[in-house]
């Protein structure tokens, strides 16, 4: 009879397979992830720190940074309020059409950014449905800041709701029931029980939403009109610099965007770590 094998060796890939797969995986990661990330910063500082700083403090760059911050400061809170409300609605109540609502919330993820811009042009553009009315009242949406905010809000629409729905589904409503039993009102229950409970998931959703809002290119590019200093966001400023052969300046601004991306990844790791640490004590 064969001696019983240890499970650990049975579950182990042979050494040649291990090294082979590891080598392929590392090569893939090196070429497609590490190299581009290193390149952004390397190209950004290739003309020295002084040039890097002057590329970021140039008036057009500063206007672009300001606009990006303004757009994110409106789109992200709006989507956050909606995300919390939609997640509460979907995870705490039973009603007809709930599945349809969930699908509709995800819809913007399936829409190309260019189409996200296009739909607002069709609605508010000079030849759009509301174009003549807007022109008569001297309101500019397309090729102006409101269009950029709307397009950004569309592409970042699902992020917070998507993060909260599975989390709140898993958490259940026991604590809320207890708070109500103890006589808490609706808002007091929301601020003292619900918000602390979903805290880290909410932070994560907001961070993802913000990263996309600051980095969005396609949708914003369609509605912006690329007016320097007025309707240029940071990604659009990168494009203009790059197309004008100001490569180093383009990569300097791109480095700033890449830093936001890296910060997003770090926060994701921290939040994941916090949620795993918190989860067992909640279960107890």
């Amino acid at each position: 009879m064969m001696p019983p094998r240890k499970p650990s060796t049975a579950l182990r890939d042979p050494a040649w397979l291990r090294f082979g797969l590891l080598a392929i995986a590392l090569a893939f990661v090196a070429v497609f992830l590490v190299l581009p990330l290193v390149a952004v910063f390397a190209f950004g500082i290739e003309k020295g720190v002084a040039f890097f700083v002057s590329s970021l403090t140039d008036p057009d760059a500063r206007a672009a940074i300001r606009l990006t911050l303004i757009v994110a400061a409106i789109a992200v809170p709006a989507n956050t309020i909606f995300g919390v409300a939609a997640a509460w609605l979907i995870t705490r109540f039973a009603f007809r059409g709930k599945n349809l609502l969930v699908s509709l919330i995800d819809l913007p993820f399936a829409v190309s950014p260019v189409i996200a811009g296009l739909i607002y042009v069709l609605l508010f553009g000079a030849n759009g449905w509301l174009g003549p009315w807007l022109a008569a009242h001297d309101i500019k949406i397309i090729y102006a800041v409101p269009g950029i905010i709307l397009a950004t809000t569309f592409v970042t629409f699902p992020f917070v709701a998507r993060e909260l729905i599975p989390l709140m589904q898993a958490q259940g409503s026991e604590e809320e029931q207890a708070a109500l039993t103890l006589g808490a009102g609706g808002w007091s229950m929301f601020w003292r029980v619900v918000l602390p409970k979903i805290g880290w998931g909410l932070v994560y959703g907001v961070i993802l939403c913000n990263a996309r809002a600051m980095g969005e290119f396609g949708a914003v590019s369609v509605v912006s009109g690329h007016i320097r200093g007025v309707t240029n966001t940071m990604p659009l400023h990168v494009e203009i610099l790059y197309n004008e052969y100001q490569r180093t300046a383009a990569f300097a601004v791109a480095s700033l965007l890449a830093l936001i991306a890296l910060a997003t990844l770090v926060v994701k790791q921290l939040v994941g770590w916090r949620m795993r640490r918190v989860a067992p004590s909640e279960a107890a």
Partner: protein
Amino acid sequence: MRRRRHALPGFGLTLGLSLAYLALIVLIPLAALALKSATIGPLAFWHAVTAPRALAAYRVTFGCAAVAGLINLVLGPLLAWVLVRYRFPGRKLIDALVDLPFALPTAVAGITLTALYASNGWLGRWIEAAGYKVAYTPTGITVALTFVSLPFLVRSVQPVLEQLEPDIEEAAATLGAGRLTTLRKVILPMLWPAILTGFALAFARAVGEYGSVIFIAGNLPMVSEIAPLLIVAKLDAYDYAGATAIAVVLLLASFVALFLINVLQLWTVRRRSAETR
């Protein structure tokens, strides 16, 4: 008897807020697209959708998205396997880095990949010395789409691998299966639903991708022009009807991909419940 449950507050408020906001930001603008396509007229719509330049753009978009999806279909699950099963220095760092294409703005990815693969770039100079060209060709488009859709396959397969029970593999080994046979005949079949879901997500994303592609693509009509760029070109020429027609085709493609995911998930759930019965 169970504790009496309170009716939670806020149904009317959250329902009203959610529906109003959804209608304002998503549904009414999308309805504008549907209305516009309805006013074009079927014949003009058909002509716009089947023009040679449009057909070439679909070919480039769907072809490159499919090839990028296939590259990730092989390398994504492989990367997920390495991340879940092997222990090596830097594993957590790589795991975190997999989300980079989600977080990095597409324009930044676009100019960086272009600079890397251009003929004087870090990678481009070696590739051109070997007689190939990546930047400003459909190959470049495929590279950009592989980058942006990389996380989908890894992140859809990874949780399935993490939850895999070791006893099935042990049983296979006990019954005399070699490790490769176990991987191929036992583990891979369990991964297929996740792999296909990841592929469909990656494809849907890649079909609509714009920012990371336009810098590296060359954007030559009939050769290296993607469908989203054709929409922008038609908009720049004030051809709203033409732009709308192409947009409808692209949207339908994404919806079909996502519909297939739902069918797939339903099928997986059914199969699981049939197995446990």
